[in-house]
């Protein structure tokens, strides 16, 4: 129930003292990005707040979409936003629990600049008992001029995530 109190504390009124953080995105990101798909992409921690996390996807030649244009493919942006969304949810829950993506929508509003890192910023704006709602954006240096906007819904997984059919 402590997590619940921490959540209600981070409303408009700033709490007198911040709740003890159980999930620290800055410390947790290297764990997630040391292996697997996030590791292969080279995702790095960039910034975070109470209910949002920003990751950096460094530019890399083998992540290009159209070879003629030196622009990142949209697939890595999906992965970036999926990962940033997960971290934002764990930050908002202040807990690390297994979650699964249910629905993820990406609107690509403009191509990322050539050879630019892309930053993915996701905010978990609503948590329920079983679902987490996320919105976010991807930008290439200026958060006011995004390259993409996202909306996503994740489900909390009730059982052991290591067992097949665990969702």
């Amino acid at each position, binding site marked *: 129930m402590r997590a619940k109190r921490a959540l209600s504390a981070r409303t408009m009124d700033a709490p007198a003292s911040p709740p003890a953080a159980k999930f620290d995105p800055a410390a947790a990101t290297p764990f997630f990005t040391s292996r*697997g*798909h996030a590791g292969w992409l080279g995702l790095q921690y960039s910034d975070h707040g109470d209910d949002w996390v920003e990751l950096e996807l460094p530019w890399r030649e083998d992540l290009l979409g159209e070879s003629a244009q030196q622009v990142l493919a949209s697939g890595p942006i*999906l992965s970036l936003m999926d990962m940033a969304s997960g971290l934002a949810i764990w930050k908002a829950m202040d807990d690390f629990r297994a979650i699964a993506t249910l629905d993820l929508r990406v609107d690509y509003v403009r191509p990322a600049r050539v050879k630019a890192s892309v930053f993915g910023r996701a905010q978990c704006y609503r948590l329920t008992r079983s679902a987490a709602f996320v919105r976010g954006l991807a930008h290439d240096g200026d958060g006011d001029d995004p390259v993409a906007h996202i909306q996503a819904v994740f489900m909390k997984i009730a059982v052991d995530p290591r067992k097949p059919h665990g969702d």
Partner: protein
Amino acid sequence: MVTEHSDIEALTPYARSLGIALERWEDGTPVFSIGFSDIIEGRPAHMHGGATGGLLETAGYAVLRAELDRIGRVASLKPINITVQYLAAGRELTSYARGRITKLGRRSANITVEAWQDDPARPIATAVMNVMMVTENQ
């Protein structure tokens, strides 16, 4: 090994580097596959949602490129959006994806894509994509 002209165009450096391959053609539609490996793993023993999305997107662009190639239309493709529905966890198996053009317009196309593992009747994810087609004189 299938050596259709459009498979060379369809595979982006990203798709190649992730390990996506053209598996076969079915009624003029390319079917793509990706084997399970560490670089597509999310939570332990499961496929990362981003890699699933990358597979769906690759199959979506490829079916559109194949159709444009077939009707002799030259256009560069630009993403408008993609909505991915994750239906089941991707397990440590080979995954497949194929797209279908729902509507081919003059400037944009609407494409639906399905990804599955052992049973095509039980997709692990589906996507709807809108893609802009830009021709030289536009």
